[in-house]
């Protein structure tokens, strides 16, 4: 028993140093050298100043920008939690109703006759992380009509930018395509300037 206690204590020390310090610190070193931008959070700069991360969704408001998916966490990237309302929850239905009404109000001026059935669910339902960087292509195409008209750009050009800023499936098959909202908006800003 005494031998087991001694070996256990030694094992805890040895494995903590190897797996808890050496392994993550070496990996950190490798990451910082090989993928410095990614290891630090894929930060995106505009005019030399950090304005976001290409992997983290942020809030956009008003008619001039593409809007991210709704978030119940205020697009917080340092205090994250799920919405967690259940499938048959009244409050959840109310939240959807509000989000859908807001979306229709915003887009109908530019897409007359837009019906609830035309609005893809990602535009109304909150993402898991609260900072989903993507919206669906269907969602982006609806918003493109608004952004094009407000910014005085041709719809074709805006749709082209949507395509350019769409992250496809991994290896062509894995996951779903998504339009990167921050990068798209920065591209729109550059185009309209």
């Amino acid at each position, binding site marked *: 028993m005494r031998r087991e206690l001694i070996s256990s204590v*030694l094992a*805890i020390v*040895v494995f903590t140093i190897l797996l808890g310090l050496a392994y993550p610190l070496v990996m950190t070193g490798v990451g*910082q050298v090989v993928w410095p931008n990614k290891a630090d959070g894929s930060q995106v700069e505009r005019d030399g100043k950090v304005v976001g991360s290409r992997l983290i969704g942020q809030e956009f408001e008003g008619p001039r920008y593409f809007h991210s998916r709704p978030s119940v966490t205020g697009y917080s990237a*340092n*205090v994250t939690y799920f919405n967690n309302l259940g499938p048959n929850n009244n409050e959840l239905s109310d939240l959807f109703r509000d989000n*859908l009404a807001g979306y229709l109000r915003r887009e109908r001026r530019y897409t007359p006759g837009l019906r609830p059935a035309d609005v893809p*669910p990602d535009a109304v339902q909150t993402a898991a992380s609260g900072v989903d960087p993507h919206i669906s292509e269907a969602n982006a195409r609806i918003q493109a009509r608004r952004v094009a008209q407000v910014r005085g750009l041709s719809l074709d050009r805006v749709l082209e930018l949507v395509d350019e800023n769409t992250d496809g499936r991994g290896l062509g098959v894995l996951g779903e395509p998504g339009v990167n909202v921050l990068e798209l908006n920065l591209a729109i800003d550059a185009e309209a300037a």
Partner: protein
Amino acid sequence: MTFEGWLQIAIYLAVLTALTPLLGGYMARVYRGERVFLSPVLDPLERVTYRLLRVNPQARQDWKGYARTTLVFSLLFWIVLYVILRTQGIHPFNPEGFDSGTWDVSFNTVSSFISNTNWQFYGGETTLSYFSQMAGLAVQNFVSAAVGMAVLAAVIRGFASRGTAQLGNFWQDLTRTLLFILLPLSIVGTLILMSQGVVQTLAGSITYTTAQGFDQTLALGPAASQIAIKQLGTNGGGFFNVNSAFPFENPTGFSNFVEVLFILLIPAALTATFGRMVGNRRQGWALYAAMAVMLVVGIAVAYGAEQHGTPAQRDAQVATASADGTTGGNLEGKEQRFGITGSSMWAAITTAASNGSVNSAHDSYTGTGGAVPLVNMMTGEVIFGGVGSGLYGMLLFVLLAVFIAGLMVGRTPEYLGKKIEAREVKFVLIGTLYTALAVLVTTAIAIATKWGAPSIYNPAPQGFSETLYAYTSQGNNNGSAFAGYTGFVQPNAPGNVGAFGITFADLLGGVTMLAARFVPLLAALAVAGSLATKRVSPAGAGTFRTDTPTFVALLVFVIVIVAALTFFPALLLGPVVQALTDQLF
């Protein structure tokens, strides 16, 4: 449901099946002490480790000795991890200046990580320093996984033994698991994840003004190295609170595939290791087949249910149909880059294995979609299950199936040529029924008393489902959650100022997780110890074969019946109610 969706599921199964014999064969060589291609690098490290630990790797242990070392080591590590979390404030690598955790949440978290559960009552980025994550939790990710695999190796030796009572040496199995299996795979995983954008830095969080002038703060940290092992070791505790839904933890469709592949990689491959170590590869494939059948059913049901959408969604007239440019379906609590397929696949897989990491909010799944993770866990975590623990749990079910088959035809049941007698069956029943009993009793206590109420978030049936899910998950060492259920209140987030634990949920959950880990573990070792010394009788014409499709079907039925009969009433009260109605609560 789309062609692209089914294609991703098919690719997943094909890759998993292809890797199973490769990694399984490698692990069999590791546990037999043979040379492998990494030996030139790792053999010196292995020898140094034994010297540092002052152990003799040649010394053999019987099942009692093996069990004793396992328990002593785990208990001591429990104490050390508890001390680390409770003294967090004085450790280095704490750029956010977090204080130490409260006693009840720390009790829960430590029990959770020692038992390979990784249930999250803690908030990763808002309460834990980088030191606690790296030197505390991530070490347990490795070690608790390695303990499960070491015990499995010992159990397999008992099944395969030709007369000797010796099951191996705990220190040797532990060290070889860590150095030859988990560490190399984790390094590969970390590199893949970093290439996709998972963060890996010691710098603190950064704050900036967004493109349209809002403030946003990025939580960072050494995440990639921890996520690799959290997926591989069926741990599942997130570096960030929303786990693998957070883009810094799982940024792309490709990283998602790798992470969800890592969940089942080792548990699946261990079936091949088993086949090789008992000298009959078909026995391994039979177990793989039984597990795979149940897995595929779960994935298909969850995928279909989530594509169908929720009552709340239909009530608010939100579209559910898939169309050009959108997946449709229930995207509440799901990320666009994973969609319906990537999310529902993950939900089924993470609960089939006892991983418990999530990339979507299970609490917001449809009634049927949410029932899939629950049922997967209720099988006792044997559909692949935890690394090591899943297969030794499955072997107990195998003996149960053999026993039942023996009763039906009136022959003494045998497995791998060894007679299954009263003593083994007693331990098998303890191992297979204990967790079910624990889940039902703890859920009942939490529902029936006033102390369980503060943890519940959703009203009506979903509130019951949250409680049932919480104790099913902790009682089977899974760790995923209907995350509305909480044991920790954090009013002034970020930072743990003013935070407090819900003591009842923390303690009941913590005790449940420890018992759920060690009761089946000891039962499996006892069975192996008892089988080890039995004579092997040669197979004859009357032998009931255990490597045929008939046996696979019987095994699946036994598991389904044990789980279904035990839990069906409880399932009716929660998920089934919600699946059958469009009514809102």
